């Protein structure tokens, strides 16, 4: 093989590797991104693909009254002495945090409605993942009896439950910041 031929072969190899490397890097990163638990939304991280409006629509479907705020929507429903609230903060239509509370004015175990409300909200980032839903319910339900404020990271999300006083339960969930 002459020098000239070697240079040609090396250039061809480099070109083929350029294309192959590009495709490989693209596909690898893409598959890695697809399975990530958080999406980019502007300068923040958000729940992937779940539209904030679909959550607000679901609450309104149950008769919640929702108001638009600069950072998102605030929904509220009062039944008897119990007030359910949910504040969904969004960027580019995706949710980066949400904050929910049940003010029941009554001691004792959380009602079935309260549990159904908080369990649904806690599962928002994972509605397509039964395993994680089970994990979060296993964390959440025993702690609704009150007595302590607790935090946990589940599926990459930050969960914060305020349950010191059973009459006021608050569940805040955020995706985390960059």
């Amino acid at each position, binding site marked *: 093989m002459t020098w000239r031929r070697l240079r040609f072969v090396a250039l061809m190899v480099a070109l083929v590797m350029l294309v*192959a490397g*590009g495709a490989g890097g693209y596909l690898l*990163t893409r598959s890695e991104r697809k399975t990530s638990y958080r999406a980019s939304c502007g300068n923040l991280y958000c729940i992937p693909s779940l539209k904030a409006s679909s959550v607000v629509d679901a609450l309104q479907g149950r008769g919640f009254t929702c108001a638009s705020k600069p950072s998102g929507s605030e929904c509220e429903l009062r039944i008897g002495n119990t007030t359910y609230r949910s504040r969904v903060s969004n960027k580019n239509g995706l949710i980066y945090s949400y904050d929910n509370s049940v003010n029941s004015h009554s001691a004792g175990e959380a009602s079935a409605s309260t549990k159904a409300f908080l369990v649904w909200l806690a599962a928002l980032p994972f509605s397509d993942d039964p395993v994680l839903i089970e994990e979060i319910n296993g964390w959440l339900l025993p702690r609704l009896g009150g007595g302590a404020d607790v935090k946990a990271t589940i599926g990459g999300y930050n969960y914060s439950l305020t349950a010191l006083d059973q009459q006021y339960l608050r569940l805040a969930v955020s995706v985390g910041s960059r």
Partner: protein
Amino acid sequence: MNPRKPGGAVTILLILGAVIVGGVLGGGPGAVAAYLTTQPDGPTAPPVMLPEFPDAARRYLPDLTVAGLADDWLEKANGYKCSPSDITTRRSQAKNLMSCTTTEAGLSSMDVDIEYDGDAQIQYVSVRCGHKPGSNYCKTLFAGLGDALFFRRRELAKQAAEWAGKNVDGDNINTSIGGVRLSVDLGSHSITAIPDA
């Protein structure tokens, strides 16, 4: 060695170098392009709601109408006078307030407030009895509310009437019967009924 011909080691090194340089130059931008253009797969819809999920339909006392309380129980059966009130303060979020009071001489300060949106949309009922603890007027009135609340669900009426009569002079106690939260307060000597969330 002929300088016109590269050696075996040089050939291998050069090809290897081409592989690495090409791969790195291609792979880096490829990865960056994927990172910038790909969003992760996530849920496409919120989870399914359980039947117990809070619903505005449960804001109202079940199977109860303003006419049933005001007309049938209070006016016809007990001679009270009922009329819509102008007072705007509410214990609930209801639009309207119906106030009923006894018309019998000497039986002052027995009042019933009904807060409602529509006839079959009662959010709150309160019965206040001005008579002293131990009075049979209050006992009869409270038990009467317990019964009237379950006008259409008779199987629960007896239980509610008994609880209200027995606890007429109780202080700050409550119970839940058939989705209705009954609370007795001695300070105002009142019994209230709201939906149990």
